[in-house]
């Protein structure tokens, strides 16, 4: 089953929690105090609260509503309303598999860890949220290959395209970028941009500018469509 790139490792510090969507499913991703990464169904079995609002206590994720603690195995470890009760072993959250490779966090359904399908050794540059669907963004990118995002000069072309990963060549600047697309509900998506080589601050600035233009174009398209 395909992996979803949900963000950069550097953006999820120890003891932090984030939310992602994997194949349309709401997922909580968190890192324990010691740095262990977990990805789970984003729902507390007690009363259905989204766990992405929770907080990390040591090696457990605590739900924001009644503070139930869940260990990295997804099992309930502590129920604050009954501090002396050993929580039943049956209380367990559905887990996703997650792994990190070259600074990207990948999540997929099921327990088998999957290897992501992108080349090794890329450098994470930045993540950006857009108010358009991943499809609109992808079409925008493909449509812009011969047109321009800068000064009417063709600046890049899409060299390879998979379901949610695109490779883009930027001959003028002599590098290639990898775009990982992540779809969210309600016409939102993220792109996580990586570069094949380490970028100078000048290049990073240029990428940011191009991304902003891209965002404007893609979001306007969404506006027109609705």
């Amino acid at each position, binding site marked *: 089953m395909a992996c979803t790139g949900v963000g950069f490792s550097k953006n999820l510090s120890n003891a932090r929690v984030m939310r992602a969507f994997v194949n349309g499913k709401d997922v909580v991703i968190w890192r324990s105090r010691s740095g262990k990464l977990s990805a789970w169904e984003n729902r507390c079995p*007690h009363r259905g609260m989204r766990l992405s609002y929770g907080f990390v206590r040591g090696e457990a994720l605590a739900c924001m509503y009644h*503070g139930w603690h869940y260990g990295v195995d997804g099992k309930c470890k502590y129920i604050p309303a009954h501090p002396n009760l050993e929580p039943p072993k049956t209380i367990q959250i559905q887990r996703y598999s997650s792994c990190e490779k070259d600074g990207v966090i990948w999540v997929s359904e099921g327990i088998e860890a999957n290897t992501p399908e992108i080349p090794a050794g890329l450098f994470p540059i930045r993540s950006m949220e857009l108010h358009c669907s991943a499809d609109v963004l992808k079409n925008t990118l493909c449509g812009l290959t011969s047109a321009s995002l800068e000064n009417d000069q063709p600046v890049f072309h899409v060299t390879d395209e998979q379901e949610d990963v695109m490779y883009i060549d930027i001959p003028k600047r002599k590098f290639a970028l990898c775009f990982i697309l992540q779809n969210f509900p309600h016409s939102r998506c993220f792109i996580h941009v990586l570069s094949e080589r380490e970028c100078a601050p000048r290049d990073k600035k240029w990428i940011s500018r191009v991304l902003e233009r891209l965002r404007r174009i893609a979001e306007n398209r969404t506006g027109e469509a609705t």
Partner: protein
Amino acid sequence: MMNPVERAKQDWYPIGIVSDPRRPKRYATRVLGKDIVLETKEEGSLSVSCGDESWEITEAYDHIWTSPSQNPKPLFSIPEENERDRRFVPCGVVHVRCSPLRAVENFLDIAHFPFVHTDVLGSEPHTEVAPYKVNIDETKDEVIATKVKFFQPQAAKSANEGIVTEYIYRVPAPMTAILYKTCPNRDDVLDIISLFVQPIDEDNCAVWPWMALYDDESSMADMVEFQQLIFLQDRNILENQIPKRLPIDPKMEIPTRADLTSVAYRRWLKKSGALYGALIQPAEQSAE
């Protein structure tokens, strides 16, 4: 059993505060998925219409109530409304994107105080919920929870230090909950905080808190602000519970002893067929 909409039509629902100078002459709102208009005439008389139907209307506990039924069930009673030295405080309205039943259930829950109303209604490490009693009062047809005790750092606007507060809960109608709690200023009386819930539809509600307190020190504005703060904290929870509707199937969520009130509430709803806003079939969960 009667279908949930027909059952829900028999009850009264709050749609406004009686003395609200800001309410427009024709105030449009929704109840049970229907668009209605509350009209205030020149002489001050009120009427509610839904298309060409006119709905029943009454005033009680500082609120305006309406019912689509020609012959609604009697409105529940709060006898303490006759104690004239109480201060009666309607607290305005908070709109919440959740089932009206979820809003009531949240109000009946104390175990969330240390985590959601941190340092106000609860605080760690005082998280334990001691055993308490829950009954169904068959004559009044109400859920009653008594001897509910909890440590609270600032139980009310007028409380200066932490106290163990004792609570009694009444659920006299599917979308109404009334709480009686230790009064920080006096030990011979109980303060009252009620939650009147307007079902906009099965997934949306408007919550009208109303208080009847023995507190002559705090200003009205302070008391309203205090309650609003509490309800905004609850809203953040309520809008992030999945599913939005209250699951009636006990297998869908996991109650513990601390949740006895909610367990009794769900059973009582099921038994009386008051399932508007309830999830009857375990549904595929949606992402949003």
